[in-house]
């Protein structure tokens, strides 16, 4: 039952309401399962537990935040979901299959702007993942320029990264992620290098693109405000050893507007996360 339904779901990407109704039929509506994942590595002072027996599932179509102090393993966890890092034990599954290597059609990654290749134009950068996949030139070029238009860069297709501002480069990186059209999109602190104003407006743009596709997003960030503002659910992690301490549902309505940041509920949610992180840190 599950496999048939998930095949159906995969084939009918365009039929949004259909996939919604199928989701309610499915026994398993999760996009990703993290099953007892541990990561240890050897350092000079002995073996370090970067992640200790982490388990949780991520539901289809949800916008999930991963927050926690440095060293809590949130980036390692993301790299494992991307198939770029192998867990020491446990596994991460997409549907029923464990992830062993990058699978860009299932799981795409949006990296920081520094990940753009500087000799490629904005357009060439966005179509690069499709080029590697063997998509023909005219198709991939059309897809990439449509995506760049959607992030407001229609007039900058032929610019190289060094001719673009930080915010524009990050837009290119986001367009590159969405252009791959994966089922799950992982974002590794994509806005960390940007100033606050750019961060805020890019957050809004990201949300408006996401509203159209409702892909599953896993978003790693240092900013609690950003996590509460963007996400449906925030997974709070602690360090030494890296582990999940709480999952907090963000019950703010959608679509989100920046005025919500001034509401009491927004403040409560952010404080709750901050208290969790701070108390664990002081133990």
């Amino acid at each position: 039952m599950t496999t048939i339904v998930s095949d159906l779901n995969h084939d009918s990407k365009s039929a949004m309401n259909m996939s919604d109704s199928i989701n309610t039929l499915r026994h398993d509506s999760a996009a990703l399962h993290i099953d007892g994942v541990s990561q240890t590595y050897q350092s000079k002072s002995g073996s370090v537990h970067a992640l200790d027996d982490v388990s949780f599932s991520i539901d289809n179509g949800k916008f999930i935040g991963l927050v926690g102090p440095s060293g809590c393993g949130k980036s390692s966890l993301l790299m494992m979901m991307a198939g770029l890092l192998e867990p020491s034990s446990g596994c991460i599954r997409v549907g029923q299959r464990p992830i062993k290597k990058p699978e860009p059609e299932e799981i795409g990654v949006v990296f920081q702007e520094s990940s753009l290749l500087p000799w490629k134009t904005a357009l060439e950068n966005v179509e690069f993942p499709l080029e590697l996949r063997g998509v023909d030139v005219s198709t991939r070029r059309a897809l990439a320029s449509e995506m760049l238009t959607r992030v407001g860069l229609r007039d900058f297709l032929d610019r190289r990264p060094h001719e673009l501002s930080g915010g524009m480069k990050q837009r290119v990186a986001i367009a590159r992620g969405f252009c791959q059209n994966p089922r799950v999109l992982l974002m590794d602190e994509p806005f960390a290098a940007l100033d606050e104003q750019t961060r805020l407006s890019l957050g809004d743009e990201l949300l408006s693109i996401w509203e159209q596709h409702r892909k599953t997003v896993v978003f790693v960030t240092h900013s609690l405000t950003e996590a509460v503002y963007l996400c449906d659910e925030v997974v709070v992690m602690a360090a030494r050893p890296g582990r999940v301490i709480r999952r907090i549902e963000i019950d703010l309505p959608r679509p989100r507007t920046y005025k919500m940041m001034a509401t009491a509920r927004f403040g409560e949610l952010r404080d709750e996360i901050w208290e969790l992180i701070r108390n664990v840190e002081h133990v």
Partner: protein
Amino acid sequence: MNPWARRSIQGAIVAGFVAVWQASVTAGWVDPMLLPPPADVLVRMVRLLGDASALHHLGVTLAEVMLAVVLVTPIGIALGLFLGENKFWGAAFRPLFYFMSSVPKSVFLPIFILALGMGFSQKVVFGMFQAIFVLIVATIAAAQSVPADWIRTTRSFGATRAQVYRHVYLPAMLPLILEGLRLGMIFNITGVLFAEMYASRAGLGFLIANWGMNFDITSLLAGIVLASLLSILVNETLRWYEHRVGAWRG
């Protein structure tokens, strides 16, 4: 300053240098036996370029230089890649290559003559020896300059190992390798000419050394100008290409 004004001043300095040279001979400030006028040197150079024997010697030098660069480029790049990518052998051999790239390699010439004689192959091998260290060191630097970020990102797109090399390593490293190749080429030409001047029976270096010993200063200067033009041509061509493929470096 706008580029045209800069070009004009640069051109005027070269023209001024030649004018002072011509004037000092005409005014009798220098002995024309020691410093013939530039016009004579130019005429001699044109005559040499029409002279079958001189052209033969020039051809020998060009063949030696070209063969050396064709052989040394793949070897140097392959060794540099290996040492830049391989932790163990990189750490083991890197000091040797770094030190060798700072040693004046001309002092090794007698050993090459003892081992290989004074013919064509000795010149080629000595040119390669001059060029290889800077090429290896540049390739090591190029390999290590590629940010892990670009490789990880490209792997996340499902790229195969070959695709990562073709789409990331190659374009990222090319400008730096070309810089090494350009320096290597200058050392290669220097090495070949020096080896010809020291002990040989053919080549531009052989002619230059002979003209010097026979006090044929006009031919000597013409030969020097020819050697300079050759080096400048090679250098500027490679520099142009380096800038073209490295425009993204800003």
